[in-house]
């Protein structure tokens, strides 16, 4: 590895609103953002609950992903002190804006097939190409006037973590000096309906990761942009790094198309890779883990065993929490939003709790920071994510 990777800026939005302060008052206080969503008719589904931001001063136009990404990107570049014209790479984790698919077919159904077939010019199908993941990266780069290469990762719940890992590889190998990494998901009916059909959504309106009575996940709004930069580049322009990315890893379970490996094998492998790269193969210097922690029966036990396998001598002494208990599952955006949350934990010296934790589960036997934040002097933290197909990612952040 030839170059240290630093973080010099971020912008973030969630159901709590825009920016870090609302995350501090929500995620770091252990206050869940779940409420019956009014963004679409939830009547056909088993639950109306999601962590979807309400309309109000913070709302982005039409709840369109392109606008939310723009706003976060502008905030991230401002914080980093980078201006338009920067040759930064743009690496995005997103599945496309599904609302454009719904809008298209709803319009076709209401207006008849002829209108649907000729839908290119109609106002009702405006932004039909926002369903294309790569299109959103192009729009973000154009809006921020970033001239570097761009690539969109579409691998579900590790997509934005994969984008960050790719950026780390590009920067550490000297191919790129600056990368703007982003991820976005805003609650909408297409995905909500699919998760409902898969019976993945929580039955009691809460997400209770690692708790004995956990019954599933709930979806949440999440959009974030982080600026990654080589340490040399940041130093030359006088930028102050917020943190460095000391290690990264990615691995696959080779087990099932939709369920995690029961022993968390791929997650353990990804975490070990990241720790080795960070020069700490045993996790001796690790102070906190931001877990994937979806609150599903399958994930949380497997993840616990995977973390135990990754650092067997230290697992019981490292606090682990799932911030999906407050934000909901942010899908493609989970990696980058939880990266920001982990960064805030390091800089603020506070562990965000696992909210909704009511009862211990024998198969989940680590310190999950239940329900209340905890002050801690943190230097290094690991954030992990997992996805359909057995994909796993791990990132180690370090405070300067």
């Amino acid at each position, binding site marked *: 590895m030839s170059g240290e990777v630093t973080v010099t800026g971020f912008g973030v939005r969630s159901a709590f609103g825009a920016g870090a302060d609302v995350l501090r008052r929500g995620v770091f206080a252990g206050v869940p953002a779940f409420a019956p969503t009014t963004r679409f008719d939830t009547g056909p589904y088993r639950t109306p609950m999601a962590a979807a931001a309400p309309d109000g001063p913070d709302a982005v136009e039409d709840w369109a992903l392109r606008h939310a990404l723009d706003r976060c990107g502008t905030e991230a570049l401002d914080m980093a002190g980078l201006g338009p014209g920067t040759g930064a790479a743009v690496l995005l984790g997103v599945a496309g804006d599904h609302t454009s698919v719904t809008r298209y*077919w709803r319009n076709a159904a209401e207006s008849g097939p002829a209108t649907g077939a000729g839908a290119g010019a109609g106002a009702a199908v405006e932004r039909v190409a926002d369903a294309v993941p*790569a299109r959103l990266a192009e729009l973000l780069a154009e809006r921020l006037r970033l001239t570097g290469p761009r690539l969109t990762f579409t691998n579900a719940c590790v997509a934005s973590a994969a984008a960050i890992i790719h950026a780390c590889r590009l920067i550490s*190998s000297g191919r790129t000096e600056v990368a703007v990494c982003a991820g976005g998901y805003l609650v909408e009916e297409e995905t909500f309906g699919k998760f409902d059909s*898969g019976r993945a959504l929580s039955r009691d309106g809460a997400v209770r990761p690692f708790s004995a009575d956990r019954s599933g996940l709930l979806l949440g709004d999440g959009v974030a942009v982080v600026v990654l930069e080589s340490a040399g580049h940041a130093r030359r322009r006088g930028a102050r790094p917020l943190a460095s990315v000391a290690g990264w890893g*990615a691995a696959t379970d080779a*087990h099932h*198309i939709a369920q995690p490996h029961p022993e968390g*094998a791929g997650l353990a492998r990804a975490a070990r890779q990241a720790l080795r790269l960070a020069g700490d193969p045993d996790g001796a210097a690790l102070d906190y883990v931001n877990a994937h922690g979806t609150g599903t029966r399958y994930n949380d036990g497997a993840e616990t065993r995977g973390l135990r396998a990754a650092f067997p001598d230290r697992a019981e002494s490292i606090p682990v929490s799932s911030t999906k208990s407050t934000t909901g599952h942010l899908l493609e955006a989970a990696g980058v939003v939880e990266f920001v949350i982990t960064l805030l934990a390091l800089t603020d010296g506070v562990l965000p709790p696992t909210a909704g934790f009511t009862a211990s589960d024998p198969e989940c036997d680590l310190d999950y920071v239940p329900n209340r934040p905890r002050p801690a002097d943190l230097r290094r933290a690991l954030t992990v994510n997992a996805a359909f197909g057995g994909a796993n990612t791990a990132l180690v952040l370090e405070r300067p």
Partner: protein
Amino acid sequence: MTTMTTSEKTVLRSPLGILATATATHGTGRDEDIPLPRLPGFVESAFSPLAYEVSRQCLTERPGDGSRTAVALAALLGDTTTADLASRRMVSGKVHNPLLFMQATPNSVLGHTSREFGITGQMFSVSTLDDPVTELLAMADLLLEDPELDRVLVLGVELGGGERLAALYRELTADGDRPVPGLPASAGLAAAVLLGRPGAGATVTVRSADASGPGSGAPAGDRPGSIQGLFDLATAHRELLRDGGSRLLPRPAAFVLTAESEARNETSTHAHQ
């Protein structure tokens, strides 16, 4: 759409070796079309069966250590057949089909491939409006710098489409003259290339050609994100295995493919200079 310059993204730092290539088409009207392979748990769409088919061919032809293998799948739009089917059911008030939930992301078929071939290296999928060959080869070059990886399987998948895809391509190409797909709605294309570094059993090497010369820019006649370049690469690979020699693959950043014997002679010549 802003197009990247060649020098920004395409140059391979080190040569790659091609271990195997595979292509599969379904419902396109081409002579090579195959019946859609049956893939347990995947329904209605050609996306996952074709992705698995080309992966299977490469990984069966050249078995290797799955713990040192990564996989990258490029698809501009993903599985649009599944997305449209699920959406149309939803807006017409029908209940969702859980199988469509399971296969909605390319991760699912990658997970199936990983299980069948014991692949535990990184697997991921990307979407690009530019040339997938360029992106995937650059990605493989980067990944193979990881000392924990020896092989990268890259593949591309593209489906035919109906009215929504036509509208979508019209919007994507509104400021240009690139064509929209002419594939029937049920058609699908997939191509895969198994890559390593030269000398690890690879029969053909790939190097970056002069990136600043003629041939830079968007490939003429290709639609955004077209995987035709992967088919061209597979064809060139087959010809080189049969005939030897070298081929120039003129993409936005050109690549030179050289059969192993020529590559060895070239290395020997350089060694004496």
